């Protein structure tokens, strides 16, 4: 970029519309991917509320569980789950691009970097489910 001097004007930058991301499906997909972070935050809020209810006693926890069953919260959590899974999938698919793993000089194919992430995801999810479900 040419820096402005007394005789040379600043380079021209077109004003970008606030709605630029609506103009192409690729742009919208990008914004949706980034917006998945909001649902990550929501999941944390739900978790914190749950811990709070758990600490207050069985009655409060039962009340919290009823809240989770209300249609609005349930719908929100369905949408959140979709976005959180979307976050996970897009995150793991980006890993090969973010980290170039080389074996004997050649770069490993993307699936070799993304694959182990998915496997770890499966194993870790199973472990958490087992701890919670074995009663």
């Amino acid at each position, binding site marked *: 970029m040419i820096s402005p001097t007394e005789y040379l004007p600043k380079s021209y930058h077109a004003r970008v519309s606030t709605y630029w991301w609506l103009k192409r499906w690729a742009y919208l997909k990008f914004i949706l991917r980034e917006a998945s972070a909001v649902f990550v935050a929501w999941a944390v809020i739900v978790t914190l509320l749950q811990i709070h209810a758990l600490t207050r006693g069985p009655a409060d926890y039962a009340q919290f569980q009823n809240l989770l069953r209300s249609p609005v919260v349930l719908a929100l*959590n369905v949408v*959140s*789950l979709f976005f959180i899974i979307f976050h996970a999938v897009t995150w793991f698919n980006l890993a090969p691009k973010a980290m170039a793993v080389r074996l004997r000089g050649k770069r490993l194919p993307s699936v070799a970097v993304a694959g182990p992430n998915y496997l770890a995801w499966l194993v870790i999810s199973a472990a958490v489910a087992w701890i919670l479900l074995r*009663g």
Partner: protein
Amino acid sequence: MLFSVGGVVSAMLLPIHLLLFGLAFPLGWLDPPSYERLLAIVSHPATRAYLFVLCSLSLFHWGHRFRFTLYDGLQIKHLNELINIFCYGGAVLGTALAAYLLWTIP
């Protein structure tokens, strides 16, 4: 760094958490753990540490990502002081809240 570790942690752990507690248990697909069992699990120091790391890192991931979504998505970079306070401040606040809640479990 917090952003990327937060991304991994939230990607690996939040789906199963939300699937179970947000859908499977409320909808009766699976039997939830009893109150006593859940309290016992959560009271354990390892679980408290796990939950703290999960919540804090996920929040910092959100903060950092949302900051740039606001900058680039809504083209409001000129509001950067407000945005930074909201995003990183929010993450710090959430972290403090998580620490307090997890510390005061009986």
